[in-house]
């Protein structure tokens, strides 16, 4: 079981570096997966995506060998009701950044290969509309009190 997981991860990194065209203008930081309670098979991941180029970048999909499917979601509270809306893509404007944060944009990770505990990591590849991609490692963490509504506006951040 463990060998299969290792093989999947290695294969993933090798295949991505061989075939994909790396996106050099997107910087991904603070990528983390929220540890889920036992027997919960839908997880959330968060990260910050910074576009250092003068062109708009459009995130179209995310893959990981450790999850069966990953979707881009937006949590919304409308009339005191919590809803999640699946997003087909996400635009990261030129010289700007977009934050995936609790209570706002998040990545929905479906059906992990194995249960994930705080400290585990998962490779994730972000694929853009121009065919380029960026692979990073996301670390599993427990939520803390500071995980509420971090939906700041980054437009004025320098």
């Amino acid at each position, binding site marked *: 079981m463990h060998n299969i997981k290792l093989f999947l991860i290695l294969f993933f990194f090798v295949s991505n570096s061989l075939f994909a065209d790396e996106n050099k203008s997107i910087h991904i930081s603070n990528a983390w997966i929220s540890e889920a*309670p036992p027997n*919960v098979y839908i997880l*959330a991941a968060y990260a910050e995506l910074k576009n250092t180029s003068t062109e708009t970048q459009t995130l179209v999909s995310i893959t990981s060998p450790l999850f069966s499917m990953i979707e881009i979601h937006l*949590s919304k509270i409308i009339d005191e009701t*919590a809803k999640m809306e699946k997003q087909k893509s996400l635009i990261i404007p030129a010289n700007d950044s977009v934050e995936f944060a609790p*209570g706002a944009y*998040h990545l929905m990770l479906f059906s992990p290969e194995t249960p994930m505990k705080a400290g585990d990591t998962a490779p994730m590849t972000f694929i853009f509309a121009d065919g380029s991609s960026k692979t990073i490692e996301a670390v599993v963490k427990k939520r803390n*009190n500071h995980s509420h509504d971090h939906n700041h506006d980054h437009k004025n951040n320098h």
Partner: protein
Amino acid sequence: MLRILSNSKFLIPAMAILAIFAAGSGFYISLKQSQNQQNSALGSSQSIEGLFWPNPKQIHEFNTLDQTGNSFGLEQMQGKWSFVFFGYTHCPDVCPITMSVMNESYKQLNIKHSDLQIIFVSVDPERDTTEKLAQYVTYFNDDFIGLGGNTEMVDSLTKQIGAAYFLNNEEQKENYLVDHSASIFIFDPKARMVGKLSAPHDSAKITAQFIKIKDFINAQY
């Protein structure tokens, strides 16, 4: 109106109506003032965000199952303060955020307020079995209570509280999402819904609001 007043035939009755109206509103204003004076002595109800006063909602008998499989109804709400939150265990973002924020708040409050219970109600009882509920709530805190059972049982509580939910399970049977209330409802030891905290939640704010509401309600006795 002016044309009516200029007609002397209507002038006297119109003035009489105005006089009654003026006297009535004067009475209303003085009533309001004495109420305000009373409120400021006990902490004004207007200044407490989310407080349902003077009209708290009395909850009637309901019938759910807790995370150990025991029945949980009105009796279990009496004699304790309760926070009630509605969600589902497969919710990856809003529910675990709220649960961990409530846990932080509970840890701060529990030292002085041992009569407080935290209740998570699953609005997805088909997937959230009793066993799953137990694993879910105890992951956040061993003291937390998880309620479920079947749809009818869950609705015996959601309908009284007015916590609407919607299962988006038309196509994708396995991994469907549920729209649910994002608020935390506060109940006093008489099982009256005395307040509601709206999302986004913050543990320090929950703690402060709860203490304000509790002090206000206790001052009414």
